[in-house]
């Protein structure tokens, strides 16, 4: 079995080199499934994964077909979840995928950078929500509100918008974005306090519905605070939002021999920035899980009354979870605003909140690789798979009416995924140990 997987993954290099494209990627995904699910010697498996990475990278680089990105995400997941692969191989291969394969593919097809950045932003937010829902067990249906607060914090001051109500020299120069990530952490944590203070006295479903309502309140405010004083510019949104200057980054890449053009330089920069932030977020998450707070959150999640009897102060502990999760989202909001140079209330609807929640739940509540996988899966589904499928339908089956365009049915597919997941695998794709035990017990 292990020899077959190894042989196939080595053989995959051939088609990857000769016929790069969607079909080859599908083949690769099949081989990947075989390697990951079949019983294999860990060393052979590590080697097979290396070959597959090489294959996916080659084919992605040559064809730019985004299915290959799913393959790379798959390899990453395999690396984080499969047992007994030596740590140095995990680390080396993981870094190679993130720092070499994806950028290489991005030069072939800049959309892959865009996809990578969006996955990264959502993954960081999913990790933030993971603290709230996964660790502390507080159901938050208004999480996008914090994302909005973060995004508007920078959008208002990083654009001429602030001139409407403040004296001074606006937009602030792009370097201030870094400072505003800190500011956003404070403003969103404060918003978390404001929302959490009334909401967290409630439990379960009531908490869900109140956070949903307050999330809507933030969206209504963003939509309507263009009068009497124009803070948010209403439904039109704010544009252009300043980006940080990256001359040093251009010099650095030029010194490394990478010729960047006007479209790819910012893409690569934001991609690397998001990667860096995810790294930090994961570290913070790991430390939180093992901290005094993390244990208190788990205790509250498992049994609130028992936790209280053991002397854990319920309300402040929950509030801290809420504020921590909010802060993650706020920092990502700033990046989101700068990367797209545009912010509007459209991005912060209930659908956004639920999408982020679904990432956490699909991936497996409380699990860090799960949250990242969930973010990757849903972002690729929404931004790429349905759109690609739409294009396929439009070019190959033009007689089908435009009303059936698959890209318009994001919610339908999303809803089906949610319902089927809850029926067949409620513990998520990569469940955390304790959650898995809980679900199996039931």
């Amino acid at each position, binding site marked *: 079995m292990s020899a077959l997987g190894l042989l196939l993954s080595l053989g995959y290099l051939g088609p990857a080199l000769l016929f790069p494209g969607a079909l080859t990627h599908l083949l690769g995904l099949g081989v990947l499934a075989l390697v990951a699910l079949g019983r294999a010697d860990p060393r052979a498996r590590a080697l097979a994964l290396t070959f597959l990475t090489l294959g996916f990278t080659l084919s992605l680089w040559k064809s730019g077909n985004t299915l290959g990105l799913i393959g790379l995400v798959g390899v990453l997941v395999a690396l984080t979840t499969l047992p007994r692969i030596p740590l140095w191989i995990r680390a080396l291969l993981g870094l190679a995928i993130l720092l070499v394969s994806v950028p290489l593919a991005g030069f072939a097809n800049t959309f892959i950078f865009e996809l990578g950045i969006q996955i990264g932003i959502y993954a960081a937010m999913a990790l933030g929500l993971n603290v709230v*829902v996964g660790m502390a067990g507080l*159901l938050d249906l208004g999480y996008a509100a914090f994302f909005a607060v973060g995004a508007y914090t920078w959008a208002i001051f990083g654009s001429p918008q602030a001139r409407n109500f403040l004296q001074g020299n606006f937009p602030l120069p792009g370097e201030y974005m870094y400072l505003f990530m800190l500011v956003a952490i404070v403003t969103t944590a404060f918003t978390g306090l404001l929302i959490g203070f*009334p*909401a967290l*006295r*409630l439990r*379960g*479903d*009531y908490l*869900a*519905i*109140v956070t*949903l*309502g*307050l999330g*809507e*309140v933030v969206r*209504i*405010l963003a*939509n*309507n605070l263009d*009068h*009497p004083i124009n803070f948010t510019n209403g439904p039109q949104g704010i544009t252009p939002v300043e980006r940080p200057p990256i001359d040093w980054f251009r010099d650095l890449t030029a010194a490394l021999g990478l010729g960047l053009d006007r479209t790819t330089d910012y893409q690569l920069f934001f991609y690397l920035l998001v990667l860096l932030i995810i790294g930090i977020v994961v570290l913070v998450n790991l430390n939180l899980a093992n901290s005094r707070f993390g244990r208190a959150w788990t205790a509250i999640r498992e049994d609130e*009354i028992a936790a209280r009897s053991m002397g854990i102060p319920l309300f402040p502990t929950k509030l801290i979870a809420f504020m921590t999760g909010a802060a993650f989202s706020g920092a990502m909001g700033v990046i989101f605003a700068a990367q797209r140079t545009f912010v509007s209330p459209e991005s912060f609807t*209930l659908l956004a909140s*639920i999408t982020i*929640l*679904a990432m956490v*739940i699909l991936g497996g*509540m409380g699990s860090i690789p799960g949250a990242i996988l969930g973010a990757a899966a849903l972002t690729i589904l929404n931004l790429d798979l349905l759109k690609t499928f739409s294009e396929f339908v439009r070019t190959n089956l033009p007689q089908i*009416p435009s*009303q*059936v365009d698959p890209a*318009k*049915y*994001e*919610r*339908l597919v*999303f*809803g*089906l*995924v*949610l*319902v089927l997941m*809850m*029926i067949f695998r*409620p513990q998520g794709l990569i469940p955390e140990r304790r959650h898995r035990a*809980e*679900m199996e017990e*039931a």
Partner: protein
Amino acid sequence: MLEQVLILLPQVVFDGLVLGFVYAMVALGYTMVYGVLELINFAHAEIFMIGAVVGVEVFRYLAPHLGSGYLVLLLALVLGGLIAGLTAILVERFAYRPLRKRGTTNRLVPLVTAIGVSFILQDLVRLIQGLWHNEFFLRMRTLEDLEGAFELFGGLVFVQTKALILIAVSLAMLLGLTYLVNRTKLGVAIRAVAQDLQTASLMGIDPDRVISRTFLVGGSLGGVAGVLFALQYTTITPYVGFLPGLKAFTAAVLGGIGNIPGAMLGGLVLGQLENFFGTYLPILTAGNFGTEYKDLVAFLILVFILLLRPQGLLGQVVREKV
């Protein structure tokens, strides 16, 4: 300004009453399901929407063939209630029952399923309407004999016939439901299951059947509310259920969720408050804050009620056993 407020007041109260009855009818669906399953059935908002869409279609196709607008409306109410009720049963059968059979204790799982179902229904209706009419923005056909209006109190209140019909039909439905729950065998079974599902099943009640019928009753009520909503507010899209659904849930919580008279009271109170703020905010703030903030009021009320009286206006405190 005070004079302006007072002149408008009777009209505001009347319009608030109409809106309140719509919320009350939808809130009952939430409350019944919550009473029996302790599930916030998010998909109920889409059941309401399906009722509205059926209403539009019945008016579109039957109005030219039938002489009387009242007959068309009667058919629309019956069909809307029926189709919405059947959809609710299907949703229960294929989405919620498998979860119940599995016996998941995690409260998140059914909630996420409900959200998923709600998305599926929205886009399915959009798909069907898209294929059928090549658009999914629907407008209710206006029928002359339902469009009559008259003035009361020397022109202070402008009353439309259809608003009166809405109030009459919803009152009848609400009274019917109260009778059903308090006086009939099915009502006793529903209350028994709501009390304690396990014990009820030991007493020879088939919980699946009772739950199915609860969804049928709640769903039809939502469907009827949808038809009346379409008649009153005329523009319908597949996404029209979300806000009224959320408000109706607020109303159910306001009254004390699981409590049937509470849901009616909550609906009426919320309708009044929302209409009050919607009309008077622009006047009182000299146009600085417009009608769009009325939704904000509903959510803020929800938060305040839950803070001050978490069990709702008519709810009872449930003590947790340790």
